[in-house]
């Protein structure tokens, strides 16, 4: 019986990734065309709107970039943990924890000058995200508790915490009892760079560059990657695994927390339970698309942001939110699938013996 399976290419296809991404996208657009036709839309009009709205002019770029900032940071958070083989599924909650911490600073520092207030908010956000990741980090480092489960479950805790604050102690006294937090003070808004692109772009780019360099070019990052590829090797070479796990997961949470702080000061009026807006979960896809390499998340997040903004925009042409979501999924899936195929090839095995042999070779 011949069975298809994936086998790692000895060398990635020459120029394979750009080619594969292009091809994947093309296939996705073709499948999407069929979907749009089936739903009774003009595909060319829809695609052209998608492009116009996300990358067509500076205002469109601003929308895409403002969306790419939290996506990129969330993706970075997942990728940094992923470099060591750890899964942080809790970026969604860590974004909220960051936003909560930043909102708390805005409450006590309502009359501070803007630059100090915003700086303190962002530092608090980093702390908030890190604190939420601390529990799973300790449990994994000291007790070997699976971090996927713990980080995932803390998402629920974080959203309940936001809800409790908004419905309870932080409810705006002027909101007619509506569950709304008060508006942020005016000086707590991030300045803008061009159009509505906010300063978070520069922060995100800086953090991504620093993290990429740290993971790729420092001894610390080298140890991280060793530990990620083989625990045994890491132990043998004297790397303290539990300390590494602790630092990396807390760092991952802190990066996601920063995304929450930037969202709060950059795009939101106030703390809301929708502040994380799915960015934490999307960050997992961003990181996967970037093949868990911190250096890749910026580009992927920009693409992802453009697809989401474009996907939203076509709803104003009457495309339903569900069709739009499927279309976005096609585009991303096409790109991911193609990315995988540029590194792996599909092998049809002639018989079971060779499977066993290859497996033992791996």
């Amino acid at each position: 019986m011949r069975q298809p399976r994936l086998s790692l290419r000895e060398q990635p296809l020459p120029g394979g990734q750009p080619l594969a991404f292009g091809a994947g996208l093309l296939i996705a657009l073709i499948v999407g065309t069929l979907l749009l036709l089936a739903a009774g839309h003009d595909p060319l009009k829809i695609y052209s709107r998608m492009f116009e709205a996300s990358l067509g002019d500076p205002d469109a770029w601003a929308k895409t970039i403002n969306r790419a900032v939290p996506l990129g940071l969330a993706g970075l958070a997942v990728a940094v943990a992923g470099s060591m083989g750890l899964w942080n599924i809790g970026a969604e909650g860590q974004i909220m924890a960051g936003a909560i911490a930043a909102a708390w600073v805005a409450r006590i520092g309502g009359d501070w000058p803007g630059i100090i207030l915003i700086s303190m908010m962002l530092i608090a956000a980093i702390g908030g995200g890190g604190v939420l990741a601390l529990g799973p980090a300790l449990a994994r480092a000291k007790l070997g508790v699976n971090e996927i489960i713990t980080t995932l479950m803390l998402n629920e805790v974080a959203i309940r915490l936001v809800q409790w604050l908004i419905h309870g102690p932080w409810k705006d006294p002027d909101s007619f009892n509506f569950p709304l937090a008060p508006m942020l003070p005016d000086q707590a808004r991030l300045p803008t760079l061009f159009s509505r692109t906010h300063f978070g772009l520069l922060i995100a780019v800086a953090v991504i560059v620093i993290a990429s360099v740290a993971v790729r070019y420092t001894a610390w990052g080298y140890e991280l990657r060793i530990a990620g590829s083989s625990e045994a090797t890491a132990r043998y070479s004297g790397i303290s695994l539990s300390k590494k796990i602790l630092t990396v997961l807390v760092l991952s949470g802190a990066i996601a927390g920063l995304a929450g702080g930037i969202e709060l000061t950059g795009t939101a009026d106030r703390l809301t339970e929708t502040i994380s807006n799915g960015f934490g979960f999307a960050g997992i896809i961003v990181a996967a698309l970037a093949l868990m390499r911190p250096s890749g998340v910026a580009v992927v997040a920009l693409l992802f942001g453009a697809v989401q903004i474009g996907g939203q925009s076509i709803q104003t042409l009457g495309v339903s939110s569900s069709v739009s979501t499927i279309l976005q999924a096609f585009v991303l899936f096409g790109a991911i699938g193609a990315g995988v195929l540029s590194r792996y090839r599909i092998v049809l095995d002639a018989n079971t013996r060779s499977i066993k042999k290859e497996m033992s070779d791996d």
Partner: protein
Amino acid sequence: MRKRLIALLAVLFAFGMLTACGSDDSSSSSSSEASSSSETEEEADSGPETKAAFIMVAPIGDAGWNYAHDVGRQYAEEMTGVETAYVDAVPEGTADFGNYVRDFIDQGYNVIIGTSFGYMDDMLALADEYPDVVFEHVSGYKMNETNFGNTFGRMYEPRYLSGMVAGSATTSNLIGYVAAFPIPEVIRGINAFTLGVQAINPDAEVEVIWTSTWFDPAVEGDSAQALLDKGADVIAMHQDSTAAGEKAEAAGARWVSYNTDMSEFAPEAFLTAPVWNWGPRYVEIIEAAQAGTYAPTAYWGSMAEGIVDLAPIASDVDQGVVDQVMEAKAAIIAGDLHPFTGPINDQDGNEVLAAGEVMDDGAMLGMMFFVEGVIGSTG
């Protein structure tokens, strides 16, 4: 890193090629659409064409708050001939709302209607940014002097009438009320409903459970079940899902729905419902925008104006009760009956409104207490 940049460029290039090929076609097709529609409709407008966009917080679905708005949108499109569009599932308090509004405005939409409370501050800011666009916010309280107003309805009127029907239907004298959030709008509805119940059946009480959701079928169904388990034989609600009705149907109890006539979801249980009828109000707003006479107001429409109404009453309800309800409805529309007329006591028996007095709008809009006969707390 370099490879990734190449990848991105390739992707953007491919994307750009496709869309560039498409843009000629699409622009010509949209202009031909525009010319054909102007030929057929022959609207003689002088200024730019009026187009209305609706933004909603949850999928329009097949019943409930957002569905009722979409029915209103379609009605307005039919009545005015103005092109309308909507997006749904737009969360509050994120950048998404502003992105959608700007998208619509880019495409020439000049009436923006937001139907969820949490859009309020965003709309206020956008109205300032786009002075030539009319913004109307449903269920909020902020406005400006030129292009941003708000709309809501006196739902307490049909709530009172639905309470009368519920009061006649209960034999256990315990009515359950599954409610979203303890805000004045919802509390006012519960109080009006309870006053209606007591107008028919002074011994009946109304027990409230807060769900802290607008739309969550699981939570709302469980809450209804808890009330049924406590002996309630009629369930009323301030929710967008039909889950409470399905539980009432299964338990052989009765149900007062909300937003729309939801009788098809629980045909045996359904008694009646206070319902929204947004269409005529949307026609008003769009026509004012079209004529250039739009002036922001804090519109709080009544049953007389038709924005709120009572759904048909189930056929097995005693004709005497139906007559009584219809009489009350006529009296409310004529201005002879106001649901909040004293004497009204609060839950603890303290007099809130003296006999013969009618509560003013301010007191109703900020209502944060339960009337006598409600079991539960407003906190």
